């Protein structure tokens, strides 16, 4: 008779077969049998968080920096509901997560038992799929299917809800190799004709632009390499969404910077005026498009995406190529080379005019700000952080708000998987736990969470996790005592009625750091900034860096919502020069 395994053992055997090395979790009554089994599986390390939301974001940071799925283990009821924000965040940003939740025993389901909630019901809209395991015989299949669903196609979170009696029940376990391979729907649905069509469009274009997104990062490091080759081969300008940063070098001359609501002047104007827009792995998010009716009105549009439902969802495109970014770019460059079309040369004249126009836009220097020698400007702080960390392989996470946009604008990424930020859901409190996950996946690398003082307080407790596991993450707080982005909108659009956006009674972050047992550093003057940043980098412990910045600084450039790309609001310097009054003011 074959050996029988308990549900808890099967969970771990499946995790082992999926080569899981870390899980992020928090124990509780309904998941105790699984926690009991943990000690027997030395290849799997458990990271104990302080709140289940933290486990979810940490798993996201782990997944996004390593390319492997993140695994979360939580208990029933509040354990599951606390992880919902992180699941939704992962769903919006296409991060592969496998969340295992405990559930009350099968016979108690539906009786309003202690710590019972309808976990699969609650998480149905924020997962790619979820399962309630009602029969121990299904557990193994479901566990492996969960990893399959989370990691294939457009990645995303899944949840497996396991009642406590199923964790105790016993059945056989058949090794995955013997199991028949789970059927997967083919992700590529394009053919050579589509590629030929794309190349014809590229050949004809005189004002082309690449608009790339998180899909390039999700497709793996190979996609980034191929993208660089394609961009060099064509000589086209390239811009990236928030999530796509790093897939193309941020300091390269063909890179126009980030586009969208807080994107650069040249990127947004190029998007508006182009005659060929090639979207690679981005989804025409509303922070990118601005006003839909006036979005890139003169262009032919190509959309390369692995998810068929992304095509024509927001912007109607002329050519849709459904497939994995890596495969599509590979076919494209192969065909380009085969046809011996060196677009950079053949199109040079046509495109050179386009580049001249772009250079003109560049002279606006839309990311410029008025620096000060009395007060630290937040943009300056990010620039200094970049300059002092660019010589090493640095991983940046962020919270959500002004600091996030400044980090995206001023920190130049050269590699994919180095930039972890909550873009779709915009979850304040994402960055600290995400940094923990990143550091777990990359123990020897420098990991910095560029934070705001309001966001960081939402998941502050996780610094305790960082200390427990000696994860030397750096929390770089741009402290302006305001919910900066809220304040900015209130200043610009709500007659400076700063309703509830000022944080009274902030903690002393240096003392707070010390209370947690890590290092606190404060910088209040531009003169001391570099020295303090160096100090932060050199400490081999978690650091909370309280960087006091200008409270009144706004994040520019900015496309006011509902406005097209060519109606940007530039920084104070430009506004002064052009004396924007009347009509210009109304653009805000």
């Amino acid at each position, binding site marked *: 008779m074959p050996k029988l395994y308990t549900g808890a053992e099967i969970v771990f055997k499946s995790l082992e077969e999926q080569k899981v090395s870390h899980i992020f979790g928090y124990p509780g009554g309904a998941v105790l049998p699984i926690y009991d089994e943990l000690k027997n599986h030395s290849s799997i390390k458990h990271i104990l968080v302080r709140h289940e939301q933290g486990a979810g974001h940490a798993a996201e940071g782990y997944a996004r920096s390593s390319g492997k799925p993140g695994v979360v283990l939580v208990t029933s009821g509040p354990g599951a509901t606390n992880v919902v924000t992180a699941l939704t965040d992962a769903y919006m940003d296409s991060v592969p997560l496998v969340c295992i939740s405990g559930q009350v025993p099968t016979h108690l389901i539906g009786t309003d038992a202690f710590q019972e909630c309808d976990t699969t*019901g609650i998480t149905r809209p924020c997962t790619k799929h979820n399962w309630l395991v009602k029969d121990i015989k299904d557990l193994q299949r479901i566990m492996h299917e969960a990893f399959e669903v989370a990691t294939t196609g457009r990645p995303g979170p899944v949840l497996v809800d396991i009642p406590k009696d199923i964790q105790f029940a016993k059945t056989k376990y058949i090794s995955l190799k013997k199991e028949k391979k789970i059927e997967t729907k083919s992700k590529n649905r394009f053919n050579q004709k589509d590629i030929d069509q794309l190349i014809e469009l590229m050949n004809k274009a005189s004002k082309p632009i690449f608009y790339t997104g998180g899909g390039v990062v999700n497709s793996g490091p190979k996609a980034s390499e191929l993208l660089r080759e394609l961009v060099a081969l064509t000589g086209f300008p390239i811009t990236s969404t928030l999530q796509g940063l790093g897939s193309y070098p941020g300091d390269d001359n063909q890179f126009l910077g980030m586009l969208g609501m807080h994107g650069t002047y040249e990127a947004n104007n190029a998007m508006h005026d182009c005659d060929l827009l090639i979207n690679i792995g981005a989804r025409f998010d509303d922070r990118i498009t601005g006003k839909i009716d006036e979005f890139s009105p003169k262009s032919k549009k190509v959309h390369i995406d692995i998810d068929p439902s992304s095509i024509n969802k927001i912007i109607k495109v002329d050519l849709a190529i459904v497939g994995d970014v890596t495969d599509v770019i590979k076919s494209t460059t192969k065909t380009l080379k085969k046809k011996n079309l060196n677009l950079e040369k053949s199109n040079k004249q046509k495109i050179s005019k386009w580049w001249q126009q772009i250079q003109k836009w560049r002279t606006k220097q839309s990311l410029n700000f008025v620096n000060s020698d009395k007060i630290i400007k937040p943009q300056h702080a990010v620039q200094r952080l970049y300059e002092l960390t660019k010589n090493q392989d640095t991983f940046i996470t962020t919270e959500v708000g002004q600091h996030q946009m400044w980090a995206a604008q001023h920190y130049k990424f050269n590699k994919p998987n180095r930039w972890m930020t909550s873009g779709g859901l915009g979850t304040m409190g994402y960055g600290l736990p995400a940094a923990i996950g990143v550091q777990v996946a990359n123990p020897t690398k420098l990991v910095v969470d560029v934070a705001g003082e309001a966001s960081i307080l939402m998941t502050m407790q996780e610094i305790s996790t960082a200390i427990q596991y000696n994860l030397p993450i750096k929390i770089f707080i741009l402290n302006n005592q305001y919910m900066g982005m809220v304040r900015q909108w209130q200043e610009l659009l709500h007659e400076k009625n700063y309703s509830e956006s000022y944080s009274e009674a902030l903690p002393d972050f240096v003392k707070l750091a010390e209370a947690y047992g890590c290092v606190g550093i404060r910088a209040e003057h531009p003169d001391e900034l570099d020295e303090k940043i160096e100090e932060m980098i050199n400490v081999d412990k978690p650091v909370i860096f309280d960087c006091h910045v200008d409270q009144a600084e706004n994040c520019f450039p900015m496309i*006011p919502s509902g406005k097209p790309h060519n109606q940007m609001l530039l920084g104070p310097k430009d506004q002064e020069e052009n004396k924007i009054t009347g009509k210009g003011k109304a653009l805000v």
Partner: protein
Amino acid sequence: MSKSKSAYSTPTKVSKLETHIIVVWVDNEASVLSRVVGLFSGRGYNIESLAVAEVDQKNNLSRITIVTTGTPEVIKQIVLQLKKLVPVHKVGNFKREDKNVIFKEMALFKVVGNSAKINKALNACKKFNPVILDQTKKSAVIQITALRREIDKMAKNLKSHGLISVSRTGAVAMTRGAEIFN
């Protein structure tokens, strides 16, 4: 130009609404209907009617027929989003005007009155294959199969003939001819 105070863009022009019948083949497993229906409610799509039952016991397949109204873009999204659900096998999408597809709904009418009244009611239903499922001296239950608007009309007309209760199904659909939908 008035100031936009919204952090979100304002809705732009909307295209014409169409009514479609969407047929979804799904694994007949727990909560599959709520996944499908949840997709509609979560993304703000309409459901005008819904019919669902297992059609293949061996393969454990159910067939869900949904009547929905939306712009052509929204209808396309619905189909693509449905195809992403793990238990969904295939999705059919038909315009209501499609001549190659038969749509039918069934209704049960309870009519109360003397036999003359009941006969009048039965007569009124003549066009829609009426079947008397139950009859007493002062009541009858009549079954008809027809299109939605025909049933709407009958339900209205029969009021004067003693109609006291209506029960009806959602639409089911089948293509004409020998071909089946793939």
